């Protein structure tokens, strides 16, 4: 151990050996092995599983009565949406917090940095624009170890309205259920039930109230998605109208739609 700096301290070499030391280089080796294992197995498997899930939920829709051309579009949509939805928040903090803009503004102190695409403020650049240009000239887009991304960012996405996606119903599914023929037995037990549905960008909890064996209402009781649940505002009433979790899809909100669907399915599962 070498110590540099202003103040000399009493050096107690080797005094602080934590742990046993017997797995010393094992830690380095196992971290590499762990990354390899994840890379080799994890992504492929989880990715395909996630896509399967998307495919299934699209099928569920398509199998019903979507017009053929609509179904063809629906099949490609989830993938596209995922990318779009992921990309969307890039601009969010920058737009919401002027201070962040200042901190993340394109490389003012790194004069020789190749200028990045204007819309992508490089997070690697953390020098304050006002600060004197570091003469050490941290060269082209030298990432700095600790960006100034701190607590404010944690809240930024919350308060930030995501650019309102244009809502388009992909298909008008299922005419309102015909007045139910007197059922042999009520399908659901009366009560208030909750269920969770999950998506790649957050979870939704649905509250379903069953009265007289029928769905009296469904609401979103907890919205933990990255986007405001207002994008799927029109879906909850459909559950009671149709007496079914089979709600419409909303274009550009397929993930939220699916999460809501599965939340209702789970809630109704508890009502049986």
């Amino acid at each position, binding site marked *: 151990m070498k110590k540099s700096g202003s103040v000399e301290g009493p050096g107690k070499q080797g005094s*602080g050996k934590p742990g046993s030391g017997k*797995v010393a280089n094992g830690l380095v080796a196992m971290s590499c092995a762990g990354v390899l294992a994840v890379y080799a197995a994890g992504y492929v498997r989880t990715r395909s599983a996630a896509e399967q899930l998307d495919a299934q939920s699209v099928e569920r829709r398509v199998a019903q009565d979507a017009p053929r051309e609509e179904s063809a579009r629906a099949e490609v949509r989830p993938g596209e949406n995922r990318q779009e939805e992921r990309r969307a928040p890039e601009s969010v903090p920058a737009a919401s917090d002027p201070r962040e803009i200042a901190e993340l503004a394109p490389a003012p102190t790194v004069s020789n940095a190749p200028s990045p695409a204007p819309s992508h403020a490089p997070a690697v650049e953390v020098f304050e624009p006002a600060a004197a240009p570091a003469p050490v000239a941290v060269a082209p887009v030298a*990432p700095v170890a*600790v960006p100034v991304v701190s607590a404010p960012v944690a809240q930024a996405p919350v308060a930030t309205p995501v650019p309102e996606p244009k809502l388009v119903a992909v298909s008008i599914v299922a005419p309102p259920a015909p007045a139910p023929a007197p059922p042999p037995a009520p399908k659901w037990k009366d009560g208030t039930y909750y269920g969770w549905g999950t998506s790649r960008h957050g979870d939704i909890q649905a509250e379903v109230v069953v009265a007289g064996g029928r769905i009296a209402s469904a609401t979103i009781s907890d919205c933990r998605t990255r986007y405001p649940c207002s994008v799927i505002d029109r879906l909850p009433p459909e559950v009671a109208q149709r007496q079914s979790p089979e709600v419409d899809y909303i274009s550009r909100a397929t993930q939220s739609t699916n999460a809501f669907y599965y939340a209702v399915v789970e809630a109704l599962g508890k009502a049986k």
Partner: protein
Amino acid sequence: MPLRTQIAMDTLVSIHVVRAGGDVDTAMERAFGWFHEIEDRCTRFRTQSELMQLSAQSGVAVPASTILYEAVHFAVTLAEESGGAFDPTVGHKMAARGFNREHRTGEVVRAAVGVDGDVTYRDVRLDPERRTITLLRPLTLDLGAVAKGLAVDAAARELVSFEDFAIDAGGDLYLGGVNPEGEPWRVGIRHPRIEGELITTLRVSNQAVCTSGDYERRGAGSDHHILNPRCGTSAGSVASATVMASGAMLADGLATAAFVLGPREGIALLDRLGVSGLIVTPELERYETGELPHAA
């Protein structure tokens, strides 16, 4: 020269590939995909994540995905190696001190179980044959640092064929190959006390660099987000700990451990593992390992 930024894991992630070519867009998209995939599994901030599902059960062997298993495996091994200075079972203590908000929604996530105050990494058992994880007592795992590092490393593997690239995930960096000028990347290490200044600049190629600082994220009061698992309060004798290693998971985990251990023990741990690092105390004393490649 593609450069892209996304938000994941409560921070900005940017990826910079020096030379465009081939299917760079797809590769970058896949690289970002890792952050979302690993966050989905390992976040403490969503009750439905695989991590929180695991944390909700104790005394049961729970089968784990490869991502979760490897992340917990590394975390527990590092905990052993650092004598508990790094401990992934501090989750409930972090939550108790206010680090419990999901960054995307602001929702407060409460642990579903009562947690003993004195749980440690020894309460986590791994079965390498059956790939299961058993929590011997109710506890909440926190894989924050490990998960982010793992995502950086996995993303780096996606980009290996492009040779020269940089990944920055809120201070977890991996630098592949050389910069656009054909030289090793220069990484400035932020001064822990003076805004806008650097404490040093390192020359890095095909290595990860991570810094744990006491100035990154604060809860209520003056707490910062690195806890000393041994006493439950924030670690005190280090202002920032920087580690340079073959991967970001290793570098981030060791930076966190070194931060908690303090300058002397921290540097001793890095030396023993053959990893380079620099620790700065609040009094701005600098402690470092041998071969730290300062830029001239």
